[in-house]
C-alpha cells in the first residue's frame, strides 16, 4: 500500500491515520485472546500478571491450573468435555445428513416454493437464540427429552443445519450437473452417482458446513441452559457457571485449550475453502 510520490500531504496524513485506525481495530479483535495464554500458566491464584511474570521469572509460571483441570478433585471438566464432544459429534453428523439432502433438493432447478422453504430452513439462524431456546424447550419437555443427551443433540441439529444448508447450497451453485447425467447415462444408479460423483465434488462444502455445525454445538450455551440436567453439563455450561461465580485460573486453562481447538478448526476450514474454490474452478 505504498503511496505514489506525488500524494499531497493531507492525503498522506489521512492514509497513515487510516492504517493506524485499522491496526488498532485488529489489535482490539485479536489481543484479548492472547491475554489468556500467559495468565493460564500463572503460578498464583490471582488473575493479574504478578511481578515474577513481568520479570519472566520461571518460578512465576506453572502448570498447576492445567493439572487442576485434569486431576482436580470433584472437577466437572472431564464429564463436561466428554458430553460436549459426544453431543457436538452427533449433532454434526445429523446436521450434515439432513442439511446436505435439503441443499441438494434446494439447488435443483425444479424445486417448488424455493423462497419460502429456504426461509424456513434457515430460520433457526435468524431467530434470536433465546426464543429458539424457549420453543425447543417446550418441544423437548412435551416429548420427554428434556435433560437427555438426545434432546440436546436434536436441539443442536436444529441450530446447526442452516449452516450446512447455506455452505452446501453455495458449493452447488458452481456444480456442473452434466457430470451426474454422464454417470447416469453410463448406467450408474442415483445412490452410486451421489457417492462417487456428487459427494466428492461437494465434500469441501459439506465439511465446512459440518465445522460450522460442530462449533455451533460445541459453543452453544443458551439452549443448553434450558435443556441440560446435571448429567448433561457441557463445557460452555461449566464456563458460564464458573464465570458467574468466580473467575478461577482453571477456567483460563480450559479457555486456552478451547483457543487451540478453534485455531485448529480455523486452519482446516480455511484449507477446505481454498480446496473447494479450486475444485469449482474459481480463481482469485
Amino acid at each position: 500500500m505504498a503511496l505514489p510520490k506525488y500524494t499531497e500531504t493531507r492525503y498522506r496524513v489521512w492514509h497513515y491515520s487510516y492504517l493506524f485506525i485499522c491496526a488498532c481495530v485488529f489489535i482490539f479483535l485479536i489481543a484479548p485472546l492472547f491475554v489468556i495464554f500467559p495468565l493460564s500458566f500463572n503460578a498464583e491464584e490471582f488473575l493479574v500478571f504478578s511481578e515474577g511474570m513481568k520479570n519472566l521469572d520461571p518460578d512465576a509460571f506453572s502448570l498447576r491450573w492445567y493439572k487442576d483441570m485434569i486431576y482436580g478433585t470433584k472437577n466437572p471438566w472431564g464429564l463436561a468435555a466428554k458430553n460436549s464432544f459426544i453431543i457436538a459429534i452427533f449433532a454434526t453428523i445429523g446436521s450434515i445428513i439432513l442439511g446436505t439432502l435439503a441443499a441438494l433438493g434446494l439447488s435443483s432447478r425444479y424445486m417448488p416454493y424455493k423462497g419460502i422453504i429456504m426461509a424456513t430452513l434457515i430460520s433457526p439462524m435468524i431467530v434470536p437464540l433465546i426464543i429458539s431456546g424457549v420453543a425447543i424447550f417446550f418441544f423437548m419437555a412435551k416429548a420427554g427429552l428434556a435433560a437427555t443427551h438426545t434432546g440436546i443433540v436434536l436441539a443442536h441439529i436444529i441450530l446447526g443445519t442452516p449452516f450446512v444448508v447455506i455452505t452446501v447450497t453455495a458449493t452447488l451453485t458452481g456444480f456442473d450437473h452434466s457430470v451426474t447425467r454422464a454417470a447416469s447415462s453410463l448406467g450408474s444408479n442415483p445412490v452410486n452417482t451421489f457417492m462417487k460423483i456428487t459427494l466428492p465434488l461437494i465434500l469441501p462444502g459439506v465439511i465446512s458446513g459440518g465445522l460450522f455445525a460442530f462449533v455451533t454445538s460445541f459453543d452453544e450455551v443458551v439452549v443448553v441452559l434450558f435443556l441440560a440436567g446435571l448429567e448433561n453439563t457441557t463445557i460452555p455450561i461449566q464456563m458460564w457457571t464458573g464465570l458467574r461465580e468466580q473467575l478461577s485460573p482453571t477456567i483460563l486453562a480450559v479457555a486456552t485449550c478451547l483457543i487451540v481447538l478453534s485455531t485448529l478448526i480455523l486452519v482446516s476450514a480455511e484449507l477446505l475453502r481454498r480446496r473447494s474454490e479450486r475444485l469449482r474452478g474459481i480463481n482469485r
Partner: protein
Amino acid sequence: MSSETQQILTTDGIPLSVSLKKAERKNKIKAFLLVVPLLLFLIITYILPIGDMFMRSIDDKMVTNMLPKTFTAMEKWDGKEMPPEEVFAGFYTDFKILVKNKEHGKLAQRLNKEKNGFNSIIKKLFRQVQRNKIDEGQSIKEQIMKVHKRWRDVEYWQAIKRTAPPYTTAKYLKGVDMYYGPDGNILQVEEDRRIHRILWLRTLEIAFFVTLFSFLMGYPIAHLLATLPMKYSNLLMICVLLPFWTSLLVRTASWMILLQQQGIVNDFFVMIGLVADDNRPEMMYNKVGTYVAMTQILLPFMVLPLYSVMKTISPSLMRAGKSLGGTPFVAFWKIYFPLTIPGIGAGCLLVFILAIGYYITPALVGGASGTLISNQIAYHMKTTLDWSFASAMGLMLLTGVLVVYWVYNKLVGVDNIKLG
C-alpha cells in the same frame, strides 16, 4: 410453426408437451423429497413449538376450567350489582370440587393476581367448606357473604368474571408494563415499577450502539482486507476469523480479565497517566463493559459480509473517478460507498439481530445494567416458571426481529447474506 410443434409426439404417441410436463413433475417431486426430512424435522421440533409458545402466551383456561358452573351462571349477570343467588350456588358447587381435588390454592393464587385480597378470603371459605359449615338447604349467597366482608364486595365478583375468557392478552400488556383495570380498560403500572419498558429500551439501545460501533470499526478493516494484496490480507484475515471461531465464553472471560480494576486496560491507563493509580475507573459491571465486549464479539459478523462485497468492487472504478477529477473523498463517497451498501446492510442486520437476542455476555460483564430482555425471558423460564409470560415476551422480541428483517429485505434484499 406453433401448430406444427404442438403435434410433435413421442415414440409412445403422447404429445411431447404432456410427456415433458410429466417428467418435470417427477423432477419436482424428487427435489422436494430431498428437502422433506429436514423440513418435517424443523416443523415438528421448531416451527410448531413457536406456535405452541403463542398458544401458551394467550392461554388463560385455568380458571375457566375450574369454575365452569360459575361462569355459566355469570352470563346472565350484568356485572354491576351483587351477583344473584345462582352465581353463588354455581361458585359453591365448583369450589367444593376444587376443595376435593385440593386445587383451591391454585385458584387463590391466580385470582390474587387479578385482585389483591383473594388469598385470605378463599382460605376462609375453604375452612368453612371443609367443616361443612355451609348449609345447602338455605341461601348460599347469604352464607358466603357472611364468611368475609370482601365476599360482599362486588369488585371481587367482577374480578372473577374477568378471568372467564379462556384467552387473554394480559401477558403482552404486562410485557410493556400495562394491565387491565377493573372495568377492562388498559392502565399503566406505577411509574417506579415500569421495569419492562426500561429493559426493552436498554436492549434496543445496546443493540443499536453495538451495531454502530461494529460498523465504524468494521468498515475500515474490511476495506483494508479487500484492497491489500492477497498474501498480507490472508494473514490479517486470521485476526478476524480466529475470534469468530473462538468460543463466546472464552472471549467474554478474556474481557473480564482485561477490564477488571487491576486489569491490563486500567494498568495501561495508569501508565500513560490518564487516571491516577488509586482512582482506577470501574470498566466492568456497567454499560462500558457490555459495549466493549459485545462489539469485539460481534465485529467479525460485520467484517465478513462487508469484505465479501468489497472484494467484488473493481479498484479501477475508484481510479476512474479520480481521473475524472474527483478528489479521493468524493470518489469514495460517490462511487465506492454506494457499492458497499449491500454489505453494510447484511453486516448491520446480522449484528443487530444477534445483539438484540444476546444475554450471556451482558449478564457476565454488564452488572445490573447488563440485564436485557433476554435475561428476563430466561429468568421467567427458569426461576418464576411463568412460561406464558416468557413466551409472550419472546414473541414480542421475535416480532421486532421479523420487522427488522422485513425492512432489510425491502431495502437491500436477503440474498446478500454470505458466510466467510
